[in-house]
C-alpha cells in the first residue's frame, strides 16, 4: 500500500490489483509438489487445540445446561437429567435482558455502519498516498486498553462535561444527562467495535475499480445514482461482514453497560457472568449462554441468506 510519492492513487490502485489478480493459472495446491498427508500434519495441532478447547467446551456447556441441582445448596453439585426446563426458566427470568442486548447491539451496529461507511469510502477512494497512514490511525486507538477507553467515556459524557452542556443548551437531551442512560451504553458499544466495521468495509471498497464510478458518470448517472447502483452493491460483502463482526461481540458485551449504564441497562452477558461466577447456578447460566449463541447464529444465518453473500470466508 506504500508507494513512491509520485504515483497517483489510481495508478497505485491499478498496480495493486494487477499484482493480486494475475497469479496465472496456478490454483491452491499446485504451488509446490507435496505429499498428500502434508496438509493434515499442518492442520493437526491447531485444529486439535480448537477441538479440545472450543468444540468440547460447547458440548460441556450444553450438557451443563441440562443438569439439575442435587440439593438446595449449589455447593453440593449438579447431576445430568435432561432438564430442559432450565431453558424456559432462563428465558422467562431474563427475557428482558436478552431483548435489550439485541436492541442495543442492533442500534449500535447501525450507527457504526453510518459512521464507518463514509470514512472507509474516503480512505479507499480519496486516501491516495495517505491510505496506509489513515488505516494505522483507524486501528491505533484500539491498542490502548479496551476497559480504559470505555472508562474514558465516563469523563467525556460526565454530567458537567462539555458534551452534555452543549446538548443541553440545544435542549436535545430528554433526561438532561447521558451517563447512566441507554444513550451512553450505545455510544460506548458503537465506539468500541468500530474497527470491526471499518476494516471489512475498507477491504471491500478498496477492491472496487474507481473507473466504474467514472463510467457511471459518463452514462449521465447522478453521483447518488452511481453510488446506489454501482458502489453500494459492490461493497455489500464488506457491509455484511462488517455488520456481523460488529453485531456479534456487541450482543455479548456487558462492559459498556456496566461502566456507562445504570442497573436498568444490564445486558445478557452481565447476567451470564454473574450467574456463573457469583451465583454459581451453572445450569441456568449455561442455558443462557447456549441460548445467546443459538440466537446469534440463527440471526447470522437468516441475515446472510437475505443478503445473498454466503461466501464470507
Amino acid at each position: 500500500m506504500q508507494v513512491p510519492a509520485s504515483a497517483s492513487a489510481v495508478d497505485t490502485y491499478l498496480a495493486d490489483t494487477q499484482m493480486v489478480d494475475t497469479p496465472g493459472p496456478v490454483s491452491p495446491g499446485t504451488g509446490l509438489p507435496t505429499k498428500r498427508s502434508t496438509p493434515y500434519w499442518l492442520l493437526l495441532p491447531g485444529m486439535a487445540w480448537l477441538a479440545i478447547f472450543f468444540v468440547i467446551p460447547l458440548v460441556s456447556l450444553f450438557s451443563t445446561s441440562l443438569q439439575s441441582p442435587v440439593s438446595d445448596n449449589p455447593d453440593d453439585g449438579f447431576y445430568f437429567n435432561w432438564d430442559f426446563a432450565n431453558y424456559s426458566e432462563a428465558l422467562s427470568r431474563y427475557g428482558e435482558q436478552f431483548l435489550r442486548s439485541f436492541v442495543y447491539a442492533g442500534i449500535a451496529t447501525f450507527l457504526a455502519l453510518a459512521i464507518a461507511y463514509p470514512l472507509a469510502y474516503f480512505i479507499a477512494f480519496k486516501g491516495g498516498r495517505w491510505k496506509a497512514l489513515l488505516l494505522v490511525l483507524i486501528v491505533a486507538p484500539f491498542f490502548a486498553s479496551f476497559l480504559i477507553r470505555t472508562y474514558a467515556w465516563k469523563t467525556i459524557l460526565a454530567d458537567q462535561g462539555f458534551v452534555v452542556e452543549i446538548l443541553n443548551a440545544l435542549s436535545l437531551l430528554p433526561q438532561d444527562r447521558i451517563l447512566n442512560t441507554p444513550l451512553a451504553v450505545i455510544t460506548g458499544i458503537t465506539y468500541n467495535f468500530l474497527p470491526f466495521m471499518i476494516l471489512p468495509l475498507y477491504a471491500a471498497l478498496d477492491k472496487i475499480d474507481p473507473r466504474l464510478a467514472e463510467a457511471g458518470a459518463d452514462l449521465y448517472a447522478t453521483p447518488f445514482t452511481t453510488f446506489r447502483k454501482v458502489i453500494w452493491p459492490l461493497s455489500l460483502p464488506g457491509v455484511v461482514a462488517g455488520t456481523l463482526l460488529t453485531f456479534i461481540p456487541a450482543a455479548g458485551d456487558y462492559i459498556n453497560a456496566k461502566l456507562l449504564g445504570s442497573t436498568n441497562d444490564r445486558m445478557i452477558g452481565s447476567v451470564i457472568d454473574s450467574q456463573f461466577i457469583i451465583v454459581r447456578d451453572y445450569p441456568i447460566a449455561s442455558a443462557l449462554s447456549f441460548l445467546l449463541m443459538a440466537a446469534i447464529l440463527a440471526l447470522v444465518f437468516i441475515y446472510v441468506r437475505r443478503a445473498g453473500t454466503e461466501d464470507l470466508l
Partner: protein
Amino acid sequence: MATSQIDPALLEAPPAAESGLQRGLRWIRENSLAIYSGLALIYMFLPVAIVVLFSFNSPAGRQNTQWNEFSLDAWRNICKDPTICQSVGVSVTIALVATLVGTILGTMIAFALVRHRFRGRSSTNLLIFLPMATPEVVLGSALLALFLNMYWGDWQMPLGPWTILIAHIMFVISFVVVTVKARLSGLDPRLEQAAMDLYADERATFRYVTLPLVAPGILGAALLAFSLSFDDFIITNFNSGSTVTFPMYIWGAAQRGIPPQVNVIASIMFFGALGIVIIGQILSARRKRTRT
C-alpha cells in the same frame, strides 16, 4: 417590443461575487465527505486523548474522571502500587506465550488452507470461523464449564495462568489464520515455481522465498494476537481463578477508582503500538522503493 424588455446588462453581468458565507457553505458542500471523515476520526481519538491527558492528572478524589491539576507523579512512579506492575507482568507473559503458540498453530493452518487441497476443507473453514462468530461470554463460560467438569476424585482442574493461556491460544488462532491467509493468497505462486526451476529444493524455496514474502503477514498476525490477548477481559474473567491480569486489575479498580498509573500504562501501550506500526510501514515503503 418583447425583446426590449430583457435588460442587456443582466446578460452581460459577471456572476455576482460570492459572500463569505456562501463561499463557506460551498466549501462545506464540496468537502462534506472529508469533513465527515475528520469528525469520525475525532470520535475515535477522543477517548484516547482523554486517557493520555488524564495520565498527567493528579485526581482530587479516588476517581480519575475529573481534571484537577497537572502532575508527572504517575509517570515518575508507575509502580507506586506494585499490584499494577505485577498484573502488567502477568498479562505480558501470558500474551507473549499465547502469541507464540497461536501464531505458529494459526500459520500452519493458513498454509494448509491456501497451499493444499484436501478433504474436509470446508469443515476446517467453518471451525476457524465459528470461534470468531461466538460472543466472548459464550467462549469464556463454555471453557469454564469444561474446566469445572475436569476432575478426578479430589483433583480439580485449577483455574489460573494455565487456564487463561489455554483460553487465549484458543481464541487467537482464528484471527491468525485469517490474517496470514489474506497475505498468503495475495502471493504470486509463480515466485515459488521460479525458485524450484532454479534448482532450489522444497526447504530452500520455503526458507528463502516463501517465508520472507509471508513474514509481514505473520508479523501482523502476531501483533494482532498479542493485543487481543493482552486486552482480553471477558474470557479471562471466567477462567482466571485468583490470577490478576492487567484488565482484571482495571476492572477491580473501577469500583473504587482507577489510579492515573493505569492511564500511563495504557498510553505507553498506545504509543508503543503506534510506533511499531509506523516503523514497519516506513521500512516496507523503503524496501519497496529500493526494489523498483
